[in-house]
């Protein structure tokens, strides 16, 4: 079963707009939620991450919003730029395991039109 569900599968946004990608999870043992950005032909790169003791984390134009009671978290990209066009993955880590294993969402392909 898919433990982390990501939506939408694809997203088209105009330059300067806000891109929003959502993820939902079921396992309440998850304790670390990173977002990865991947450009074609490259490996995923860590973009921003949050722990469930905070409801929001902001780094530049990227913000994670976290709703623990709803078991949802989302990535907001403000003032989206064509250079943000990439595939984005949310992920979650089970804190009770000391292995650091991540469960990834299915990915969202973002296209920012100039």
């Amino acid at each position: 079963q898919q433990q982390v569900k990501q939506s939408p599968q694809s997203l088209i946004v105009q330059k300067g707009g806000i891109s929003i990608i959502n993820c939902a999870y079921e396992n309440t043992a998850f304790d670390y939620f990173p977002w990865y950005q991947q450009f074609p032909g490259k490996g995923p790169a860590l973009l921003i991450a949050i722990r469930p003791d905070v409801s929001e984390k902001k780094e530049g134009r990227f913000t994670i919003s976290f709703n623990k009671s709803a078991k949802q978290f989302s990535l907001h990209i403000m003032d989206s730029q064509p250079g943000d066009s990439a595939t984005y993955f949310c992920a979650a880590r089970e804190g009770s395991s000391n292995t650091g294993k991540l469960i990834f969402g299915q990915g969202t392909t973002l296209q920012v039109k100039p």
Partner: protein
Amino acid sequence: DAGITQSPRHKVTETGTPVTLRCHQTENHRYMYWYRQDPGHGLRLIHYSYGVKDTDKGEVSDGYSVSRSKTEDFLLTLESATSSQTSVYFCAISAPGRIPDEQYFGPGTRLTVT
């Protein structure tokens, strides 16, 4: 790419042949992971290692084996390649810590099984 190299970067092989992919890190990190990436599935963990000669299965381990005889090298072997193993394979390492946190990915290996 955080001191991670993967080889080969591209490989085409025939069904039934054995294939070994190599991941090499220069960071001396304890934890290493092998993922496969397929459209619609995100990244799925195949196997991981928490030290030399210490490995365990991930969620899609059938048909794969791994070995880690040195801290810096983590090998993924397809004993008898099948077309369903056509995929892009990524190696990752975790930053050190009591519980592995951030993961850093290599550039990937594109494997085609004909």
